[in-house]
């Protein structure tokens, strides 16, 4: 199996944006609260479009939200 996994800083960015809730973030980009929770926990990799939308909400480049770790074990569920 290929190595590598995506990590993210959504929890931190939510905190830095007035403790934005998962539900509010989801509502702003058309995802459910459960999907935001799954993305945050690294259980689900969002589409490229959703990833860009998340970055847009926090007004940061995509690379500040999601990071690729080529040496990490792959995600079990996506």
């Amino acid at each position, binding site marked *: 199996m290929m190595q590598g996994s995506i990590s993210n800083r959504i929890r931190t960015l939510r905190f830095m944006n007035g403790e934005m809730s998962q*539900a509010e973030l*989801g509502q702003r980009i*058309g*995802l*459910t609260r*459960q*999907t935001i*929770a*799954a993305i945050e*926990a690294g*259980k*689900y990799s*969002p*589409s490229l479009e*959703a990833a860009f939308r998340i970055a847009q909400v926090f007004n940061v480049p995509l690379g500040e939200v999601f990071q690729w770790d080529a040496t990490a074990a792959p995600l*079990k*569920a996506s």
Partner: protein
Amino acid sequence: MSYREKIAWLSLIAMAVAYGPYFMFVARDPAPWEPLPHLHPLGLFALVSIVRMLILGAGYLYLRLGSPREERPPLDERDRAIEHRSISAAYYVLIAGMILVGCFMPFSSTGWTIVNAAIFWIVAAEVVHYGVVVASYRVQAS
């Protein structure tokens, strides 16, 4: 637990309650089931289907009334991905079952045995469909 996962659980339970006893009955006592076009067994199947519909109807109503509108959002990309994955898995079960029923069973079985085998594989495909939905939501929630 999300609203969609609850619906998937409901569908699994309705299937188990309705079709479980049906298949136990036909597997235990297949002899009285005369060859087609003997239509009496259709009554039993209709009864089972009505029981399933009633469970589903009551369950939907209960879940809908118990869940505020914000807990029932429209499908998002993760829901669609899960749905796509579950339907793909169910398709393979269904196609394998139909090959068995349509291409091999006519050489060894007749009448209601073939009909019930076809129903069994359709139900099995539905169980796989909802089973994969539940498993996917569980894995991504834990």
